[in-house]
Every structure is written in structure tokens, then in C-alpha cells.
């Protein structure tokens, strides 16, 4: 028995991967189908956000197939690969999926800063673009140095400047920022520290004072941090949290007497998963997003009708309209629209990565386009150019009422001039380190 077991396991182990690889090629040669690789994390420490996000992403693709028969008639196919939010697993997924489908992988959406960094160097050789919706690498917004990376909508720095503008709005104007004390409570990691330089620049420009309070990962115990925050007596608190840290921060803030309506969160801290567990402590808490929540949009209704009513929903119906779910939908939406833009030039057929890259770079979604897609007020207009890979998105602030997120502001414009200079500086440093000659963007 024991011997058999060992032999069987050994045989399985040695022989197993080979047929699996042989299978890879058999998908090829099918009809006109556009392949979109999906890298998700449904396990690991951030699965709480990863699961609804991917459900939204997949549901949108299902909806496009069901409602329109694909993009311009080209059906979408996809395959999901589990990364568990680990860069090495993501690289493995990337390599596994990059040659799938008729013309190879069209575009990757890593959904994570470290995952993004892990493949940036491979993209130019593989000619595959990367959409990093709302996350970093921030300086990849400079398309001259990073032709294949698209931090669409808003990067971390833009988003952070919008938070200051939102605070200014509450205070009655940018001039009233002078003398304010702002506490930046951040996740103690590369991601968390990324906004420190931009805050410093803004503090200098507007004359407010900023103090940083790092929270050690995963952030379950924050008593000491919040005692320090209270001692600092901030006028506002910026919460740059992640995962379980967010709800703990909101609870601790309430305990030490920092009112929730003085806390402004980043989009990773802006979902029902963060506010519901915090209970009453979260009521009045505002946070920034680049999309709207809820299902009161024709586009979201289409997902409910064509996917969930048809019994094909990826996740539970209740998650539709929540923060992470809508973010997944928006991510799939811009991916599909970019491919559509590409098809406008290359024809309605499966596109290669390079062609999709062109599509993203020339994507312009005006108010009219967004209205036609049934997404008015769900997403702001986007206009990506060769040099500006961010696309000029705007930031929306939402407030937690205890039941749902309500809109708390207009779509705010970030301090683009300030951010752009910093991005170009940082991208130039990267180019020098890697020996890249930035391309020129004339046309």
C-alpha cells in the first residue's frame, strides 16, 4: 500500500505537468475570439477584496458576451489564474497565459502594486500592455518611459492631491489649508509610504502641516498609533490603509475620539468590507474612489439582467454594486473599451497585445461615449495620450452612511501640474537606472 502510494504520487508528480502543457496549445486556432487573461487573488490575505473585484470583472465580460455577442462581434474568452497576491505566482501566471488565445494575451490587469513591478521589465519584449487601474507604479503615468504600462484613471499621487482639495473644499477654499494639521496614517509598506513625497510638496505649497503615522502590517493592533494621533491633535486624518487595517483604524479612531467625518481614506480603504465591520465608528467616514458605487446605472442593470438573472453570476448577487465589485466592473469596462478602440483601427478581429496597447493609448471616452455605455456618473471621462498614461481621470468622494456609500463631492480634479512634474522626475530616474531612452511623443 505504502509503496503503491509513493509510486503513484511520484508518477503523478513527474508525469502530471506534461499533458497540462500540451493542452495549452490545443486552444489555438479557434474562431475569432479575443482572449483576456485574468489574474486574481481569491486566496491569501487580500482575498476579501480580490474575490468581489474579480467577480465584477468576469461578470462584465459575461455581460458583454451575452448582450452584444462580444466586442464588435468578437467573443471574449478568458482564463483565470490564481496569484494569491504573490509577485512570483503572478509572474508564473503571466508567463503561463501570455501566449494563450488566438493572438496571445491582450492585456494584463495585475491588481496589486508589487505584482505590477514584477512584470514591468518583461512587457516591452513580450509586447503586452498592463492596465493598473488606480494603483502603481505611479511614475508609469509617463508614457514616454513606460510605453506598456497604463495606470489609468488616477494614480496614487493624483488621488492624494484630490484628498487635499476635498479637505480644502470642506474648509472653504485652498487658502484655508494654511495652518491645518493633517495626520497621514498609512500602511507601513512601500505602498503606504508612496504618497509621503507628494504630501510634503503640497504641505509646502499650501502651508499645512503633515505628520506620518505608520501602522505595522497587518494592522490588527493600532492602539499606540491612535494615541499618538490624538496627541498630535490633527484637523484631518488621511487613512492610507489596506485590508484588515482599515476597520481597526476606524474603530480605534472612534475610541480615541477622532471623528469619522474628519477621516479621508484612499480607495483601498473604501469598501463595505472596511466600513461594515467597524459598525457605528465608520458612519460619516469619507473616502476617495475613481468610480461610483451602487447599481443605479444602466450598465450595472445590464449585468443584473444579462448575467445574474440568467443564473450565470460569478459571485453572490448581493455583492453587485459594492465598492470592490464595481471597481472590477470598471476595470473590465476600460479594458473592453480599449480593445474596442484598437478594433476601430485594426478591424473587428482578435487583437494582439501590441494592437491593444495602441487601443489603450488612443482611448478617449467622452461624456457622450460614457452615456452611450450607460455609465454616466459611474466613471469620469478618460483621455489617454502617448505621454499621459493616466488619462486625466477625476476623483469622487463618497461617505459611509451606515448602510451604503453616498456621494460626498463632485468629481474633483487632482493637482495635475504638481504631480506631473514629480512623475517625470521619478520616471527619468528609472530610465537612467535601466538605461532606457524615453520615446518622443510628437503626433
Amino acid at each position: 500500500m505504502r509503496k503503491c502510494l509513493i509510486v503513484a504520487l511520484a508518477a503523478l508528480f513527474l508525469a502530471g505537468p506534461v499533458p497540462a502543457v500540451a493542452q495549452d496549445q490545443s486552444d489555438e486556432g479557434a474562431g475569432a475570439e479575443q482572449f483576456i487573461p485574468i489574474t486574481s487573488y481569491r486566496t491569501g490575505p487580500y482575498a476579501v477584496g480580490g474575490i468581489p473585484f474579480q467577480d465584477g470583472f468576469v461578470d462584465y465580460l459575461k455581460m458583454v458576451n451575452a448582450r452584444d455577442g462580444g466586442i464588435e462581434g468578437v467573443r471574449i474568452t478568458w482564463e483565470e489564474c490564481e496569484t494569491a497576491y504573490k509577485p512570483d505566482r503572478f509572474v508564473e501566471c503571466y508567463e503561463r497565459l501570455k501566449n494563450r488565445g488566438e493572438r496571445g494575451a491582450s492585456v494584463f490587469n495585475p491588481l496589486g502594486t508589487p505584482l505590477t513591478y514584477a512584470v514591468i521589465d518583461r512587457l516591452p519584449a513580450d509586447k503586452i500592455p498592463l492596465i493598473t487601474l488606480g494603483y502603481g507604479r505611479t511614475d508609469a503615468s509617463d508614457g514616454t518611459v513606460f510605453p506598456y504600462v497604463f495606470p489609468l484613471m488616477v494614480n496614487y499621487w493624483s488621488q492624494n492631491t484630490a484628498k487635499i482639495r476635498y479637505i480644502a473644499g470642506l474648509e472653504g477654499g485652498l487658502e484655508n489649508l494654511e495652518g491645518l494639521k493633517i495626520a497621514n496614517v498609512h500602511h507601513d509598506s512601500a505602498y503606504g509610504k508612496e504618497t509621503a513625497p507628494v504630501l510634503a510638496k503640497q504641505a509646502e505649497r499650501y502651508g499645512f502641516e503633515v505628520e506620518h503615522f505608520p501602522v505595522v502590517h497587518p494592522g490588527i493592533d493600532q492602539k499606540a498609533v491612535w494615541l499618538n494621533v490624538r496627541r498630535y491633535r490633527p484637523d484631518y486624518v488621511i487613512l492610507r490603509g489596506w485590508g484588515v487595517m482599515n476597520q481597526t483604524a476606524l474603530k480605534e479612531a472612534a475610541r480615541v475620539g477622532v471623528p469619522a467625518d474628519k477621516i479621508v481614506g484612499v480607495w483601498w480603504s473604501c469598501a463595505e468590507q472596511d466600513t461594515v465591520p467597524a459598525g457605528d465608528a465608520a458612519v460619516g467616514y469619507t473616502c476617495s474612489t475613481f468610480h461610483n458605487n451602487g447599481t443605479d446605472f444602466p450598465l450595472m442593470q445590464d449585468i443584473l439582467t444579462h448575467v445574474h438573472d440568467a443564473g450565470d453570476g460569478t459571485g453572490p448577487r448581493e455583492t453587485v454594486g459594492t465598492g470592490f465589485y464595481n471597481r472590477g466592473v470598471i476595470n473590465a469596462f476600460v479594458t473592453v473599451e480599449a480593445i474596442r478602440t484598437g478594433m476601430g483601427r485594426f478591424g473587428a478581429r482578435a487583437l494582439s497585445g501590441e494592437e491593444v496597447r495602441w487601443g489603450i493609448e488612443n482611448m478617449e471616452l467622452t461624456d457622450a461615449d460614457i452615456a452611450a455605455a450607460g455609465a454616466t456618473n459611474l466613471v469620469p471621462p478618460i483621455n489617454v495620450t502617448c505621454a499621459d498614461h493616466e488619462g486625466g481621470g477625476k476623483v469622487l468622494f463618497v461617505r459611509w452612511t451606515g448602510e451604503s456609500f453616498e456621494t460626498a463631492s463632485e468629481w474633483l480634479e487632482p493637482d495635475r501640474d504638481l504631480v506631473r512634474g514629480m512623475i517625470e522626475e521619478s520616471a527619468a530616474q528609472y530610465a537612467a537606472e535601466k538605461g532606457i531612452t524615453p520615446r518622443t511623443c510628437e503626433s
Partner: protein
Amino acid sequence: MFYRETGQYKTTYAADRAIFPIRQDRVAFAVLLLVAFVAIPLLANEYWLRSVLTPVLVFSLAAIGLNILTGYTGQLSLGTAAFMAVGAFAAYNLEVRVPEVPFLVSFVVAGLAAAGVGILFGLPSLRIKGFYLAVATLAAQFFIEWLFTHVGWFTNYSTSGVITAPPMTLLGFSFESAESRYLLTLCIVVVMAVMAKNMVRSELGRAWMAVRDMDIAAEAIGINLMKTKLTAFAVSSFYCGVAGALWAYVYLGTVEPQAFDVLRSFEILFMVIIGGLGSILGSFLGAAFIVLLPIFIANASGIFGDALSAETIAHLEFVIFGGLIIVFLVVEPRGLARLWQIVKEKLRLWPFPY
């Protein structure tokens, strides 16, 4: 029948001390090298070379490092990933600040830097043993991760704290393709593995094993405990440092301090335990097991197609992986290397066991 050493006489001391005293082993090893150096680069596709075989080799090197410390010298360590991080960041900083240095030299410097840090954090081993030492090495793990996250100098003040490795060129040849990177890793790993194998068979290695088996007895027969333990830490960290540099340069091309967290240390410890404590071969087997199995499960679960949701498959992977580890440890607690040894013993009598 085939695996029998009858008629092979050892006439010199050198022959008696050879790494592979049996001719069949030597042939098998030569064939294995030939496969690794010639057949695999020719046959395997980019996916296999880049994202499966290269990490297996890098982890094997780290596992050899930990095996020297834990398997051979008996000093339990949970700081492996930290020593890898030291290697990665040392190589990066040298390359960025002194670009003239060839990257192979910076790999050696990476190893030396890690060895220095290893000696420093090995000092508590002179006073404490076993689980208490494991806790002390955890300090290295947390401190080094903290250091690289918070001191901007180490990441060249990059805003995100993530370093990207400069391109690797040697005598005008750029290591860009998957094949060249695989072969580079393979060369380094093979050379260092042979060195490790010889080290553990030498006086130094025997001193390590004596300390592992009973340190008081070892001291009584004249082994300098301090020197032995600290060399074990130094050599072990050297291997980990080079592995870290390879991880950053050859495999990912980019690295952030969080990539070398305590979970990575545990992962390497599992490789050593599953592969076999006190075995160089075991380090390779353990690394292959831990890296390949999840990939294999993920690939194999594709046969279920749409019948299983992506979420179920992701969780299934954990269940199968965990289950298999338990099965292996129950069936053979001394690891995959011991299984291989049993197979060899059986093979000598095959097909007529008495």
C-alpha cells in the same frame, strides 16, 4: 540488475572518497547534467524555463543554504528570507552605485554581505539552541525587512521602495532571453551545489555534523564550537545571499522588501524538511516539490473546465497541497532524499530480492 556495483574495485583513496563511488551513479549524474544543460534549453519553452525551472533552481540554492545550517549543523533558523534580502539589496546597491562592476562580482559581494549579516545574527547561537535560536533568528527576519523598508538609502530613495535590477551584461553579452538566464542560474547553482557537497564531506562538514549530533561531545573532542557554528552561519547565509541576488536579478528582475517576509523563510524551511534534512539532493527535491506542486495542481485543475469555479480551484490547490505534505511526512518523515535512498537500496537487489 543494472544498479549493482559488483566488480567495481576502489584501488586508491581518491576513488574511495569520490562523491559518487558507484559507476552507475556517475553515469546517471553525467546524463542528468547533460539533460539540464543541453536538452532542457533546447526542448523547454519559455514558460517552463522562465517561470518554473529558474525559480526551482534559485530556491534549491537557498534550501542548500538553510540545509547547511539546519540540516548539517542543527541550528534552527527562521531568517533565511532576510539573508536572501541582504543578498538582493547588496547586489542592487553595488550595481547602481558602481556600475562598472560585473554582475557576477556583485553576486559574490551579495553572498559576502549576507555572510557578514549571518555571522552577526548567528552570535546568539553560541548561547542558545533549538527553538530559542529560531526565535532569535526571527529578529533578523523582522529587523532586516524593517531596515529595507525604512532606510531610503538601500532602495536608492525610490518612492515605492521597490528596486528594479539593472540589466545584466557580461563581456558584451546581455542575459535577456529565458535560455541564457536559465543557463546562468544553472551554472551558478551547479558550481555552488558541488562546493556544498564537498564542504559537508570535508573536515568542516564533519565538525558541523558533530555539533549537530551533540555539541558537548563535539567540544570534548576538540571542535571549536564558536568557529564551527559561525562558519555554518556564514556559509549558509552566503548561499542564501546569492540565491536572493539571483531571485532579484535573474528571476523577477525587481524586488521589494516584503517579497522576503517570514512566510518566505517558512517556505524554505518546508523545502528543507520535505526534501530531507542534511542532504544536498534533498534541497533540490524539496525546492522542486514546493515550487512545482502548486503549479501542477493549478494546471491540472484546468481539466475540470467550467465545472468548478475559479474560487473553488484556488482553494482546492491549498487542500491538495497541504494534504500531500502531510502524506509525504507520514510516509517518510526523513524527506524525499530518504525516499530516493530507499529506492536505490531496493534497486541494488532488483529484480531478485532475497
